[in-house]
């Protein structure tokens, strides 16, 4: 448990010093929002805001991929993975620390991105905030759980960053389905369907367990 907190703290502090990951993810998200604007010129504003939850989650997914790729890159460059692996206790706690750090950083980017989307597409997000925050938070747990498990694997193979989307996106379809459904309901002012929340919770739970137990094999040298 202490290991997890230590790693969480270390990662957040090192990110605070350089802020490069968060910056990169944020810029990327904004660019994606602009790309969507150009990609969908034929839509009227109302149609665009109906699409907004889906577009938002697309942006979230891709910027998360960006951030996750880098989450182990630092260790890889400094050959620190072996040192990490020597940390005492169950390696699952290392996973939790890393995943939590990813969650915090990605959530920050997501909040700012949502603001940008609200601006670009003229949606008032304030009334939707509690519901939206819940859905996004839950969805991001799943993204971080699966992503933190798969990123160190992808990064140490021949094709590095290219492999992570290939591995992670199929795993995230359930999250995407539940999150878009839930976000759409929140933004439209409807109560969030229980099925969506259930899907997110179940998927999150499964991925957290699998990753916690399996991280041992991922970090093994």
């Amino acid at each position: 448990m202490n290991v997890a907190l230590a790693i969480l703290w270390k990662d957040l502090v090192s990110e605070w010093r350089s802020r490069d990951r968060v910056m990169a993810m944020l810029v990327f998200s904004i660019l994606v929002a602009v790309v969507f604007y150009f990609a969908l010129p034929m839509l009227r504003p109302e149609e665009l805001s109906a699409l907004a939850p889906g577009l938002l989650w697309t942006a979230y997914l891709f910027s998360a991929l960006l951030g996750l790729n880098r989450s182990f890159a630092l260790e890889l460059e400094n050959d620190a993975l072996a040192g990490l692996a020597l940390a005492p206790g169950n390696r699952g706690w290392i996973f939790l620390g890393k995943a939590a750090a990813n969650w915090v950083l990605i959530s920050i980017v997501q909040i700012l991105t949502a603001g940008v989307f609200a601006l670009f597409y003229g949606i008032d997000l304030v009334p939707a905030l509690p519901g939206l925050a819940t859905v996004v938070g839950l969805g991001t747990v799943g993204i971080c759980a699966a992503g933190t498990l798969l990123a160190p694997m992808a990064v140490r193979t021949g094709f590095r960053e290219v492999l992570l989307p290939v591995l992670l996106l199929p795993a995230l379809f359930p999250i995407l389905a539940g999150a878009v459904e839930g976000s759409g309901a929140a933004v439209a002012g409807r109560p969030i369907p229980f099925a969506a929340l259930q899907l997110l919770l179940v998927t999150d739970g499964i991925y957290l367990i699998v990753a916690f137990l399996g991280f041992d094999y991922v970090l093994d040298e």
Partner: protein
Amino acid sequence: MNSNPEGHGNAQASIPSRLESRASRWRRPMGYLLAALGAAYAWSVMSAPIDSTQGIIQKILYIHPPLAYGAYLGFVITGVGGVLFLARQREDLDRLAVASAEVGVIFCTLMLVTGPIWARGTWGVWWSWDARLTVTLLLWFVYLAYLLLRSFSGSSPRTARFAAIYGVVGLVLIPLNYYVIEIFGSRSMHPENLERGSLGDGMGLPFLLGNLTLALAFFYLLILRWEVEAQRRLDDASTSSGA
């Protein structure tokens, strides 16, 4: 035929293992049975009555759903094999996992080929996000990711471990994706009938034979591919130990 080149520790613990040898012994009789079943299956398909409403295209019913055995069983075996490999450290189970993934992806691909053909022939559209076909598509991506992960990792003990972990992820996704598609999924314009026309008279036998034949074909190819994997690793080991 046991091999144990000097010094490579556990990595070269006997290839093929007892399990593999036992499976191999089944292969030839399975092959004969497969040939016989295949013939009976072909005959029954050709002599099956032609559906009055859908026409002859309806006969795809005897080949498309049966492919599901290979497609789904394939990944289940890959996932479970991987877990057991991690738990028991048995290389032969890793060989089984990779064999099952390769044979399974072929069956999955064939499902994705015959499904649209069926849809096109019956409804006029190639793709319609029909619930079951969509789940099969998602499974196909998991297969692909698994195989890409293995091929990009080269052959090392680490590859097998990574692949096993991803195998578990994929295994979990099978029921999850079903759940997703059921709740949110089908934007399908067409009802479930795409897969389950109610079986009328004379359709029971070809359907049964189709299921049996393709299931048996899966296991036959699985054992064959398993053997090939063992041979490949033997070959790798011999070349790398400088024999």
